[in-house]
């Protein structure tokens, strides 16, 4: 027992090898930047560090067994309920996403800002990549919070470093203040969770909240439920800022517009992916905890947030002429689509093994969204590199004739954002909407009251899918408007020719990812399914724990 504990508490240095490498490389960059000023040297070092971290991940993958596959149940439990980080398939997935994001950001940021800041800039990007991996691995409220802050704090510097114009400073300041405020809300929620459960270990929290039949709703001390709900609301509010869910979205357009194109692309993706990762973890949708504890407590909250977020994002985007603002509102709308998955998730436990449940759809959508959003910001960045910043819709006019390849790539990303078939966006939207629809078809057998309730809920989620479809149509309008501006109108002032820079490479990678995820979704979908689905032992535990449809 004591040995198990020692392994649980001390086993993390080897499994976090990629993050440790990234952290050390960041230290090297910080120090090196004071001796040598060169964007090519430090960009190369950062890329090398990311590759090295990838190799480390590969070697860790071969030497460690994910906790789900651990044959000794008691040993697995000891680790799960005591370790600050877990080596899970979910964590591996996020490490991989973090490293890919890191590579893309380093390539995009290669020519960003003044050369004298290149070292610090890339060091911050490496720490952000490490933070994404750490968020996926965190198994403790404190580790989770610190991992989220490991992304936020370098982000402030990244926002502030490249240029000292008044709008950029305002954007950095606005983001900083609101981000700190949201962290405060998150901590407040965490403190209540700790107060209720007496532990900071996330597995422990979920276990004790879902301890007996049907979660805390019917627990022996129902009076604690209020505390849990307050903490749930606070956590959702704190993370809602990161995922730009309405009503915590209002900073996004101003900040994206004010800051540089690369920083805007980073802000559109990185906080969103870690925000959703943290939500999935805390709500207990990952692995064996099954969402009974937290996730099913306030389904209607996510329902409303999803509906309002996507509608508001899409409708406000209609009026935008600044492309960065437009993409900001589009990122809000996409957060709304992803929230559908969270709203549906508690209803989808226990459906057949072939169906995709809401959580899997969310993770897939996150990856797809990352490829297409980073890609479209990359196109803007590449076009801006010859001097003139491409910001307004009018700057793109006639791009189809002057830069046919760039226009084609941009159209690919726009089609993916719309959700056209053969692109990643289509698969993501299809999975989410299909999930919301299929709640209706999975009504359990049972007594009349349960069937009636389930039917009612099925209608509710069908309505959500309908709202989503209407929104997708509204979204198509403004994305197509951009595309038509590129192809149907003549350029008055053609943009200068595009230089081949590292950013072009990042753009190509995004385009390839968008296409591959669109045409062969199962390449990503099956690892996601393995990461999210409970193990066989976990399923048995869940079945013993209580009814599948939780009480409202």
């Amino acid at each position, binding site marked *: 027992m004591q040995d198990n*504990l020692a392994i*649980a*508490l*001390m086993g*993390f240095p080897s499994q*976090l090898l990629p993050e440790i490498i990234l*952290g050390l490389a*960041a*230290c090297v960059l*910080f120090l090196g930047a004071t001796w040598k000023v060169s964007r090519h040297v430090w960009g190369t070092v950062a890329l090398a560090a990311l590759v090295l971290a990838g190799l480390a991940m590969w070697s860790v993958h071969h030497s460690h067994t994910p906790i789900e596959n651990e044959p000794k149940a008691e040993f697995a*439990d*000891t680790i799960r*309920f*005591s*370790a*600050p*980080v877990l080596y899970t398939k979910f964590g591996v997935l996020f490490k991989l996403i973090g490293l890919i994001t890191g590579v893309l950001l380093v390539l995009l940021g290669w020519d960003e800002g003044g050369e004298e*800041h290149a070292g*610090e800039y890339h060091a*911050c990007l490496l*720490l952000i990549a490490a933070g994404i991996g*750490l968020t996926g691995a965190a198994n*403790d409220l*404190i*580790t989770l919070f*610190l*991992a989220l*802050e*490991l992304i936020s*704090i*370098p982000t*402030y*510097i990244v926002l*502030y*470093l490249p240029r*000292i114009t008044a709008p950029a400073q305002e954007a950095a300041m606005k983001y900083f203040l609101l981000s700190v405020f949201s962290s405060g809300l998150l901590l407040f929620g965490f403190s209540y969770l700790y*107060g*209720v*459960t*007496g*532990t*900071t*270990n996330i597995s*422990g929290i979920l*276990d*004790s*909240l879902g*301890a*007996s039949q049907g979660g805390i709703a019917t*627990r*022996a*001390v129902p*009076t*604690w439920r*209020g*505390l849990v*709900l*307050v903490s749930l609301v606070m956590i959702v509010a704190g993370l809602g800022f990161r995922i730009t869910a309405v009503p915590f979205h209002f900073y996004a357009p101003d900040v994206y517009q004010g800051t540089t194109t690369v920083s805007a692309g980073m802000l559109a993706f990185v906080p969103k992916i870690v925000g959703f990762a943290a939500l999935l973890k805390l709500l207990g949708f990952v692995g064996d905890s099954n969402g009974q504890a937290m996730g099913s407590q306030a389904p209607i909250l996510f329902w409303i947030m999803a509906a309002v977020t996507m509608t508001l994002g899409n409708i406000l985007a209609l009026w935008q002429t600044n492309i960065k603002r437009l993409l900001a509102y589009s990122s809000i709308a996409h957060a709304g689509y992803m929230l559908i998955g969270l709203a549906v998730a508690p209803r989808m436990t226990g459906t057949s093994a072939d169906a995709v449940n809401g959580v899997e759809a969310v993770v897939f959508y996150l990856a797809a969204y990352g490829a297409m959003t980073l890609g479209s910001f990359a196109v803007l960045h590449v076009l801006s590199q010859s001097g003139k910043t491409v910001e307004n819709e009018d700057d793109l006019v006639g791009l189809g004739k002057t830069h046919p390849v760039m226009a084609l790539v941009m159209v690919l990303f726009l089609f993916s954002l719309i959700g056209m078939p053969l692109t990643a966006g289509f698969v993501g939207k299809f999975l989410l909407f299909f999930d919301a629809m299929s709640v209706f078809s999975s009504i359990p057998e049972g007594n009349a009251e349960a069937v009636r309730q389930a039917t009612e809920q099925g209608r509710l989620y069908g309505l959500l899918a309908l709202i989503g479809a209407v929104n997708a149509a509204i979204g198509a309008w403004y994305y197509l408007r951009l595309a038509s501006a590129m192809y149907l109108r003549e350029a008055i002032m053609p943009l200068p020719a595009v230089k081949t820079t590292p950013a072009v490479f990042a753009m190509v990678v995004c385009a390839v990812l968008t296409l591959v995820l669109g045409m062969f979704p199962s390449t990503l979908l099956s690892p996601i399914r393995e990461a999210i689905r409970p193990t066989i032992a976990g399923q048995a535990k869940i079945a013993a724990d209580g009814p599948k449809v939780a009480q409202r």
Partner: protein
Amino acid sequence: MTLHAALFYILATVTAISAIGVAVTSNIVRAATWLLFALASTAGIYFLLGADFLGATQLIVYVGGTMILVVFGVMLTASGPFVNMKVGAAEWAISLAVGLLLYSVLAIVLLQIEPPSRNIPPNHTLLPSKHIGAALLGSSSSTPEAKVTGLRGGQFIPRTRVSYLLPFEIISVHLLVVLIGAAYLARAKRRREDVA
């Protein structure tokens, strides 16, 4: 009423009044002073709860450090002798409504719960800072074993055995980045002065 309770009520009253003072006053220096009292009496409450390291931290970092930053910030930016923040009536009404709403939700929720049972004996006689040190460094034998909630099927799982070794290291990276941000801020300010 025990001395304990009396001290708690005194400290709680001071905290609450000072916090209201921060929100109500429109003079920024006065707000800073009210904040000082609020933070200091919160530290007092930490001491009262036996968390002497936390109380000392609160005094050193917040009362001693952050407050100086606030006052410096005021002195750096003040264009006139008195900085006043005028707040409109509508803003007053909205923030008052939101604040009261949040307060009532929290009050209702907190009044619902049963007071925690007092029969958990303290199982150690460590000084709290040593205690925290042991926990920070990965020895989990001394973390508090609060058993507030039910356990599944009577099965015992050591819930609170959590090592803070890794968070400890992440914090050091945080501080590194913060310092680099501060250093950059310093140079940016200086460069602008050079230009001017």
